[in-house]
């Protein structure tokens, strides 16, 4: 690995931020409550800083090899085909990754607003027609064939109340709607 991997740096930075905020936050608490945060946090931060530096300083990469920190240590790497990404995953292009995550975000947004009962069939038909390239009639068929058992299992047999969406809440008196739980 000769060039700096910006993506890895971003992940290290993210994890460092979490670890640092917990350790620094711990100073606000009394006595023994700080103990675990420090005992675990300080070595964790040290490791992460070390990984970060190893990524930017080629000389350190050699050193990390000696410490068993190198990527080569991952036996899983052995099973990857050419062109595989680090971490032993074989993914598509960044564009494809973005599209798939976009689908998840879209599905969540629909669920949040319209509730499970509307979001599930709509999402399924959209995904099956656009992403899976099924003809719409087929997609609706698959959705019905798969959605019905889901409805029977979760609603009728298990009686799990599913999120009704915030929309019915905004338009009052329709079917109740869900109270959005407090975030703050």
């Amino acid at each position: 690995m000769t060039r700096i991997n910006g993506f890895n740096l971003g992940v290290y930075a993210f994890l460092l931020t979490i670890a640092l905020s917990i350790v620094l936050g711990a100073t606000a608490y009394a006595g023994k409550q700080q103990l675990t945060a420090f005992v675990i946090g300080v070595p964790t931060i040290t490791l992460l800083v070390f990984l970060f530096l190893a990524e930017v300083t080629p000389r350190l990469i050699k050193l990390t090899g000696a410490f068993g920190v190198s990527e080569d240590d991952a036996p899983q790497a052995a099973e990857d085909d050419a062109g595989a990404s680090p971490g032993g995953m074989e993914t598509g292009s960044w564009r494809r990754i973005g599209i798939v995550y976009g689908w998840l975000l879209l599905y969540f947004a629909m669920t949040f607003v319209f509730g499970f009962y509307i979001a599930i069939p709509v999402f399924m038909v959209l995904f099956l027609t656009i992403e899976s390239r099924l003809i719409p009639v087929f997609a609706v068929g698959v959705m019905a064939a798969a959605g019905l058992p889901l409805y029977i299992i979760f609603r009728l047999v298990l009686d799990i109340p599913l999120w009704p969406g915030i929309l019915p809440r905004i338009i009052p008196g329709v079917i109740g709607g869900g109270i959005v739980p407090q975030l703050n």
Partner: protein
Amino acid sequence: MARIGRIGRFGRLMLLAGALAAIAAFGAACGDDEPDFPTRDVEWFVGFAAGGGFDTASRIIADKMSDDLGVNVVVRNIEGGGGRRAVQEIARSDPDGHAISIMNMPNQITAERLDPEDVDFNELSWVGRAVIQTYGLYTASANDFNTPEDLQGMPDVRFCLSGLAGHSFLVASVTTEVMNIAWNPVTGYRGQETQAGLLRGDCELALGPIAGTTLTAVQGPDFKVLWMYSSERFGPVPDAPTVDELGFPELGGSKFANNGLVAAAPGTPDDILAILSDAFDAALQDPDVIAGINNAGMGVETLTPDETAEVVEGMDGIVSEYIDTVRQKSQAQ
């Protein structure tokens, strides 16, 4: 069978929802004195996991109340923060009586004092008392101390407790202060872990409601109750003395009992509250309900809404009186 009732409920919900606007309009136009209650299912919040004592009692009572109210009373477990999330949920519900919550008192008051969340318990619309669990102090049978005097002579007695907040911590703080016992808490013991802690010698004493599995344990040969926080002998453990008998009446009465009190949102109209409390009382008079609650190791001593509000005020007073002791001990840890 319950299943069929549940399916029916969904259909009925839809019907009711469809008719809701019409009913509301009709009610408003007529200026009827009879409150339109309940117009849909009533939710009963439980701040603890399904399967616990309060949850069990809630389900038994709610089931009976459903018959009386003509709608389903649905138990919803809102776990979190040692029961506090359910309290908050009810405190900010609409005051239309369609949501009620059972809460462990005075535990919730202590928690609120130590870490305020802007809940005023005197503001809640109290429905009544579902269950009562009498507190007791117990230890492993192998230990050779029995009386407050025995404990006073020991260096630092350790109590296995759930945490540095909460009711058992309050009761432990008060007891040791009143009885002049030197003590230290060992925390993180929930449920039956406490008994394991006693048997292992992690601690010498534990206290809590003598109900459910704790009651079973102290009725067995491995544990003994040193005293009960009541003024009269406790039926299921008749051999244990009361704090009054030991000369500490200030700890007696049912001041330190764990109460399962039921409240609706603040500002719930009296007529709606009356409908709720009638159904609630009727349920608690049912022999099957009482037997079910007793089976789960809890007692039934009903209170009217006004009496409940008074009890809450009294609890508020006790907590206020001892909160500094609790805070000091907690911060010393």
